[in-house]
């Protein structure tokens, strides 16, 4: 099979590392070759963060380049737009519509662009926009936004539900398992 590319983008501290860990665990049980590239250190502090997940028969490069992503899962709206050029022509952006102002917007040096979902759609990009934050809060915690988005991503893969559940169980503390399962189900609706 051709290597599949999933980019997870967001703001440092939003929990994208857990999402890539979960995805990696699931893909490993499927017998794929996998590479997951993360960012640690300085850019984690509220900066723009990117994680690359690649899987297939044999994966070489740990990074995803422009025009290569089958999916971009974005934890924040502006970050989806920032990384749109990484999407393949037939790729899809799954985006949490939550807006987090970057410092240049907070200080008034720049404006947060308006109507980004519409603008991305107008540019011919397949966008699956959702208020993942509200769904996570409904499930029990804003921190489960990452799991809500993984739930939405699961709709585009053929993996059985129980395999996703097992990957969640392996990735989150036991006391938060039920809440995260609920968040996943809400995302997958």
């Amino acid at each position, binding site marked *: 099979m051709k290597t599949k590319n999933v980019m997870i983008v967001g703001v440092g501290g939003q929990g994208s590392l857990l999402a890539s860990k979960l995805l990696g665990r699931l893909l490993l049980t499927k017998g794929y070759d996998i590479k997951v*590239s993360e960012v640690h250190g300085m850019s984690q502090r509220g900066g723009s963060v990117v994680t690359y997940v690649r899987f297939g028969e044999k994966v070489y490069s*740990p990074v995803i380049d422009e025009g290569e992503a089958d999916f971009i899962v974005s934890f924040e709206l502006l970050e989806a737009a920032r990384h749109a050029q990484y999407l393949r022509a037939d790729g899809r952006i799954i985006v949490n519509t939550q807006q987090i*102002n970057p410092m240049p917007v907070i200080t*008034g040096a720049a404006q947060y662009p308006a109507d980004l979902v519409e603008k*991305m759609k107008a*540019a011919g990009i397949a966008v699956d926009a959702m208020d993942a934050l509200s769904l996570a809060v409904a499930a029990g915690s804003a921190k489960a936004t990452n799991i809500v988005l993984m739930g939405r991503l699961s709709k585009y893969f053929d993996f059985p539900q129980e395999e996703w559940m097992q990957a969640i169980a392996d990735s989150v503390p036991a006391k938060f398992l039920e809440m995260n399962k609920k968040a996943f189900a809400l995302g997958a609706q």
Partner: protein
Amino acid sequence: MKTLMLGNEAAARGLYEAGCSFVSSYPGTPSTEITECAAKFSEIYAEWAPNEKVAMEAAFGASFAGKRSFCGMKHVGLNVAADPLFTISYTGLSAGMIIGVADDAGMHSSQNEQDSRHYARAAKLPMLEPSDAAESLAFAKLAYEISEQFDAPVLLKMCTRVAHSQSVVEPSDRVVPPQKPYIKNPQKYVMMPGNAKRRHPVVEERMRALTAYAETAPCNRIERGTQNKLGIITSSTCYQYVREVCGEDVSVLKLGMIYPLPEKLLLDFASSVTRVVVVEELDSFIETHCRNLGIAVEGKSLFSNIGEFSQNTVAKALGLPANSGSVLSEQIPPRPPVMCAGCPHRGLFYTLSKRKLTVLGDIGCYTLGAAAPLNAMDYVLCMGGSISGVHGFNKANDGASEKKTVAVIGDSTFMHSGMTGLVNIAYNDSNSTVIILDNSITGMTGHQQNPTTGYNLKGDPAAKVDLEALCRALGIRRVRVVDPYDLKQCDTAIQEELAADEASVIISRRPCALLKYVKLKEPVVVSSERCVSCGMCMKIGCPAISMVGGKAVIDDTLCTGCGVCTQLCKFGALCAKEASDE
């Protein structure tokens, strides 16, 4: 069983499987997790040393005692440890020793983009360079074999994309070689001139033996293509990019041992193809070696020596089809890293900014004080550079800058290499003001313990350096502590210490807001009626505060209730939760 591991985690696994018993490191992105993962094995003694030089010497001591050892650091850390490095090359070892060094092409989290491969050549030591997690594990084990066979420490060179990428590895069991008996041998280990003169020829002979070894080393291999037109010489993560874009027609010489480089293997490979291209990030290390052998290669004529590569970089340079995506016409504002909401450094930096002081900064989270809107930093050089620099700055200005200049440095950085600079201030008598930002942890690299926190790497209680007593012992008489959440206290202390006629240290003390034990307060409450849109609260660059429709808004998910903004609001629009309840 197959499992996914970060390159760093896999390297730690390799240390474990090879029977490594001693690890001493200083944290630094992207090297930190090797040591953190090694510390999880109860069979390995692992510690954070105060700096890389101490770590390397400690690891050497363990090898001298006959047990396999490791020390890890980022590229700039190897500069700090360069002194022991060059002489351990002369003494050699008893048991095997690995020096892990992680480069950061692309400078994701570093102050420079140096190419650490040059150290292997300069110190005349072997260097291995894995290209993924599986090789990180395998090369760590191989490195101990080479180290003991050739009586030299081996440099294990990582880079960000190998260190921080997960891939599939297959772990195996730990095998511990017996401890080597201690035999006193001053001719080999006491490096005074008479002995060192006898050791240098040994080093040169070792280089010849290692070069011969490199010709058939298991980590160097040729992947023969179907045609003999293009041949690529590459290593590390660049190998992955090459394999990603080049088809089966291309031959690849994949080098796992980057120093010393094989001669015959390179010559034979080059003569088997019509065109040879070297693909390597940063400097022309392999390329220069090939040219010295008389091989006509292309390299930096096609590739940049700045930044990191990707598959598209390689495709474009080789004239192969590269992918591209559609760019939105929209202007996307950048999202630089920021000081976290509740960061104890914020109140202190606001004070420095308000007083328009010249600030000589250092390496750590607080380097973010240089960013807008605080803009409270004038230089950042290296670990410890703030304190030594402020002394030189004030001396050169004949004291004229003393009343408006400070050095700022974190607790861990002060332990690393700030102390000696402070001794210089006291000993050579400059009236300098030093601020130690003590947040009780090594923050930027992801919360590592250090000698000021009272805990060690394994999480056990440990001796805790008393910073106040230490500064006094180093010769500073004026030492005071402030709470950076208290703006008035910060301002008074800074003004008084700058006005004083002798050197002083201000310790700005409050634990990092991200530490688990720190009890956060309720988010600050905004009274929109009282907000007059003056924008004072926006001057501290807190990510939890924004202006919506001309009124201050607090993001409850980010706000930690630190209260710094409430002290700036003259109109009572921002209040602590308990105050607003009254």
